């Protein structure tokens, strides 16, 4: 009853936190909320130490050369450039396949399909996202690889004069193309679900206006929907890219790791991927020094994917998409 009658507005937050139980509650929740930061910082520090050690013993050639001779001889040499480049190459192949497919899929779901079919397709896409990567890897190894070798053989036979379809070994197994294809399958649901949502939020009055002006579907997409959703779509593509860079197991069985740099021959049986390198080498790691090199490789993978993801999320957020 002590509240003065002239007070019209009370600060509920400060009133509530004056209670002792609430203060404890708030403090506990706040501490828990910073776990994410703690984990990120922990990863950066622990793997960062390994990276510093690798750079000091190997020099910057750890990043810019391609070699992995650690267990033989007494002077270990290691460089992950080929693997870093391989990761990017695979992701680019994946993007080349996944971006058009995802955009067309979201156009189909948002603008073309009847509502029932659209809902079913949304479920199909979500289900695709739910397939564990090990199952995708198993499928890729036994069901995708054999026919894909045929496709690549034909590509090489008829389009072999194009540099990217060169193949000197005659072996079409474990190529960047197959691994990139698997990554594309992992990226499609991510990119589709973001761009579907963005395209679906195109203001209907803009679409109606375009239709009233006599725009065809293509003109409407080109001049209204795509420009409107551009930011979100780019963000979605980068989210997919982040996923592709860090993917390990789905491509483990279908990519032949070679400690050499394969610049562009996507249907040659030579590939590289940092994440896959870590798993492949961990199984037969020779000692603490090699393990440390793997941790260092993990650090650069972490930095790369983190950068891509942060930028992607900033872009997606800027276009006003609610988080997912």
């Amino acid at each position: 009853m002590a509240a003065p009658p002239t007070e019209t507005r009370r600060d509920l937050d400060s009133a509530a936190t004056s209670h002792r139980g609430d203060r404890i509650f708030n403090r506990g929740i706040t501490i828990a909320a910073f776990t994410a930061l703690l984990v990120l910082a922990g990863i950066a520090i622990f793997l960062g130490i390994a990276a510093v050690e690798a750079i000091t013993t190997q020099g910057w050639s750890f990043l810019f050369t391609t070699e992995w001779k650690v267990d033989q001889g007494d002077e270990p040499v290691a460089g992950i450039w080929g693997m870093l480049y391989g990761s990017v190459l695979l992701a680019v192949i994946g993007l080349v396949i996944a971006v058009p497919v995802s955009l067309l899929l979201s156009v189909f779901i948002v603008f073309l399909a009847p509502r029932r079919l659209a809902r079913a397709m949304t479920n199909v896409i979500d289900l695709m996202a739910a397939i564990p990567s090990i199952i995708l890897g198993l499928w890729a190894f036994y069901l995708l690889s054999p026919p894909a070798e045929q496709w690549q053989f034909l590509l090489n036979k008829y389009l072999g004069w194009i540099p990217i379809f060169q193949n000197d070994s005659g072996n079409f197994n474990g190529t960047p193309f197959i691994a990139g294809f698997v990554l594309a399958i992992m990226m499609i649901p991510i990119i589709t679900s973001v761009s579907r949502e963005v395209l679906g939020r195109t203001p209907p009055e803009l679409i109606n206006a375009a239709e009233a002006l006599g725009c065809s579907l293509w003109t409407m997409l080109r001049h209204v929907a795509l420009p409107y959703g551009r930011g979100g779509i780019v963000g979605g593509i980068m989210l997919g890219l982040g996923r592709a860079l860090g993917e390990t197991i789905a491509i483990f069985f279908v990519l032949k790791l070679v400690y050499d740099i394969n610049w562009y021959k996507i249907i040659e049986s030579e590939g590289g991927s940092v994440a896959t390198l870590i798993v492949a080498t961990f199984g037969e790691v020779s000692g603490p020094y090699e393990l440390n090199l793997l941790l260092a490789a993990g650090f650069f993978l972490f930095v790369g994917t983190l950068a891509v993801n942060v930028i992607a999320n900033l872009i997606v957020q800027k276009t006003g998409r609610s988080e997912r």
Partner: protein
Amino acid sequence: MTQVLDREQIAEWSAQQPRRPWTKKPARLQAWIAVAALLPAALVALIFTYTEIPGPILLVAVYFPLQLLAAGIAAVATKGRQGAADSVIIVLAIGATLFSFIILTSVLGSLIVRGFEALWGEDGFRSSFLFQNNVYINPSTPLEYGGLGHAVIGTLMIVLIASLIAVPIGIATAIYITEVRGRAVPYVRFFVQAMSGIPSIVAGLFILTVLIVSGAMNQSAFAGGLAYAILMLPTVARTAEEVLRLIPEDLRTGALALGSTRARVVLRVVIPAAKTGVITAIILGVARVIGETAPLLLTSLKSDQTILNPLTDPIAALPTYIFDNVALPYPGAVTRAWGAALVLMILVLILFTLARILGRDRLNRFR
């Protein structure tokens, strides 16, 4: 003179679906569409039956261009040149849809066909495959013996440990963002988002350095659970945040006005009101991690025995069981991998469906 409109009349008008006279296609257009859709397929089917050209080439090099061309001609004939671009988009969009549908069917179909070889023998359903472990089993042992019981127990144990860690922290993070609303909210959301981008292998490496290389503990279910928790936390936090946001503000202010403290409002009013949503968040978190393999390869290794101690011994899990069996040059081992993959996929599907059902319930209640 202004005319006063009847409220009911307005409500009735706005409830009506807008008519779209242009969506009804004239008969001529429908005929063209039918011809353009059927003719290329029929033509290619004929070529396929009477020549030796293999199917995939025919599909890519003949059918696809032909279908595009047919759609283009039909579009130009009915709608003029402007229709050509539309027809290309429509054909490509349907193509992309079919592509993703075929991929999904192929993955699930192969899982069912190959998986049942492990689960179903001449003697009917092989429950031994689900309940036995891998002791005394080598890759060439017949499928009647041994199974993935130990891996199922391992997966359940690891996921349980991960949930016990990630769920409270994840929900607390969501509560911080929606209920406590401290000054750091934008930063916390940023960190959670950044955390969701951590590659699973990096989560495994982190736990490996902190716990195992440092000598604090052995590779074990607990270490695997910690690595899983890192991957699970962002999913739980973000889904829970979305759910808590849906709780009407009136509930909170009402409870505060009745004199309850903030902590009580959250624990007794907000969380119970969002119960199904919070459960959905947990399920989605579990579904996110249950198939992750890379972190377990580093943190929990493998085992052939049924391990019940989560702290000291390496332990098997479904994903690592698949991983170990895939590459073995024995058909029996590969069949085991497919069987385990089917079991894993069924687990994921159950979680997925549960989340869908609960999610629908949640939307109905608050929207």
